């Protein structure tokens, strides 16, 4: 699964052939300890999820009266209705706007930069410097620079807008995207670039007609990873917005929980609703998503 993104430095030893199905791997075949851990962990993962789902269908009185792990005796959709009536749709749209608004441009500019770095670094010190800057940028944690970001957003008068969340999200998606994408653009055979040049194609044309189709899987992967990061982002909306109309889902979830502390079934229904889109995506494109999660650090 992760091997699609595996990168080895050119000088490394030859890549071992992946183990063939069912053969070898004696260690892994009858792994008792691993088996116990695996099934145990499954319970640890599924129990809370099961609990969220069943509780979200309980009436509030039942939640306090019945066994927490028993399925609801008279399931209800009221909690969901309640959440939807509480502007959930608005927060959902906000989240979509922020995610698309940040990730779309971020992947586009990162792809362009990755192309420029791969194509131009040999001759340009400037581009080598840019590459170095992005690599260093990987080490900057968003949390640590949130105060100046807050100041900048106030200065450019974007506080309490969706744009305020979009701009830093976009910027912080760039370093990793550039790194992953440049690794893939680098894999495009030089001869293809050469023949594009012979045909008189411009670099811009080569970017779209050659590099784009050949790196499409990596582009999808990077988009998914960054999309998930922005969709689940909490600290930026927390700090850069204040009015309820600008909330994204994670923040809405948090304030909802603060507001309806005792209505646990409704709170959990909101958890289910915010997670549903991602789960759907996971079911549709599991492989892409998982390789996206380890994009860039597949070792």
């Amino acid at each position, binding site marked *: 699964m992760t091997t699609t993104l595996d990168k080895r430095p050119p000088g490394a030893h030859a890549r071992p052939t992946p183990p063939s199905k069912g053969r070898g791997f004696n260690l892994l075949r009858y792994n008792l300890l691993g088996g116990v851990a695996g099934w145990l962990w499954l319970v640890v993962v599924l129990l809370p999820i099961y609990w969220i789902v069943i509780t979200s269908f309980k009436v509030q009185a039942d939640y306090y009266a019945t066994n927490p792990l028993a399925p609801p005796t008279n399931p209800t959709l009221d909690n969901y209705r309640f959440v939807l009536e509480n502007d959930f749709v608005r927060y959902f749209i906000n989240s979509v706007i922020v995610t698309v608004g940040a990730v779309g441009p971020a992947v586009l500019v990162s792809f362009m930069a990755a192309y420029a770095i791969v194509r131009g670094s040999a001759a340009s010190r400037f581009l080598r410097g840019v590459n170095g800057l992005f690599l260093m940028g990987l080490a900057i944690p968003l*949390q*640590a620079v949130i105060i*100046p970001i807050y100041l900048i957003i106030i200065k450019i008068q974007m506080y309490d807008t969706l744009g305020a969340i979009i701009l830093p999200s976009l910027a912080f998606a760039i370093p990793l995207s550039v790194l992953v994408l440049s690794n893939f653009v680098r894999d495009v055979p030089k001869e293809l670039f050469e023949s594009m040049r012979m045909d008189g194609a411009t670099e811009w044309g080569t970017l779209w007609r050659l590099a784009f189709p050949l790196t499409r899987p990596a582009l999808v992967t990077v988009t998914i990873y960054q999309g998930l990061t922005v969709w689940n982002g909490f600290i930026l909306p927390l700090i850069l917005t204040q009015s309820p109309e600008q909330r994204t889902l994670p923040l809405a979830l*948090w304030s909802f929980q603060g507001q309806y502390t005792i209505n646990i079934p409704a709170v959990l229904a909101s958890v289910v609703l915010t997670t549903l889109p991602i789960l759907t995506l996971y079911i549709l494109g599991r492989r892409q998503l998982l390789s996206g999660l380890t994009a860039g650090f597949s070792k």
Partner: protein
Amino acid sequence: MTLAPPVVPSAPPAASSGGRSGSVTWMAWPALVAFVAFGVVPLIGVVLLSFTSWNRLSTDIPFTGLDSWRSVLSDPGLPHALWVTFLIMALSWLFQTPISLLLGVFIAAHKRYRSVLAVLFFVPLLLSQAAISITYKALLDPNFGLGAGLGFEFLQQDWLGDSTLALCVVVFVVSWQFIPFHTLIYQGGIRQIPTSMYEAAQIDGAGRIRQFFNITLPQLKYTIITSSTLMVVGSLTFFDLIWVLTAGGPGDATRALAVDMYQRGFKADLMGPASAIAVILVLVGLALALGLRRLGGRDASASQLEGV
């Protein structure tokens, strides 16, 4: 979701045939401008702000020299926050690493039911930390939560009201989300180990336990370093999860660095000291990343296959 700031093996840009760099350089500009504006400038900004006493409500930002630093460094809150951060880091490493390794070995095998299990394992990675924290907050309620449901006495505790327990809960919830991520990394690493090594060991009569300790573990050296670096450096920035779960409490029991920074800056309006904490956060992160890299003996991107 906030994953750890990735520490990625850096490959030097390979020379490609292009010579006319002038015609591609402009393509790097949009990304460069965006990243400088909201990444590099804020990084410089946070250092500068740590020498001021901005209170975030006023528009002027008075320069006050080392005052913020003096107040932060003399505040007993700082060693406490560092200690909490260190505890969370160490405990979550100790908890996550063996489980991820074990699960990684388990799902690396090409077995159908294991891939199905793996699909389910990864679900926590998809959820936002806000959602996870809210869920656990309710789930750990001593009267109506999981403890009451399963009927286990020891589960019915005031998990978030006791200092030690709250810290353990933070570590557990962090692990609940991130173990699948590290499992995925280990699975990738394990699948890189040549089968021939196990076959040879078998011929030599090595048992499975010995194979694990003599082949799997040494072969995974660099995978372990990568995974540990991500865990350790990532744990410095835990904010969403702690803030929603405990808000740094009870008292200041789970007030880690990032939470401390937020509370000083955005709750107490002391942006100067908060910026100083942020600078410390960056420095500690860098020191740890470099230290772990050194521990690896050489560049983490080097081959794991030495001695084959």
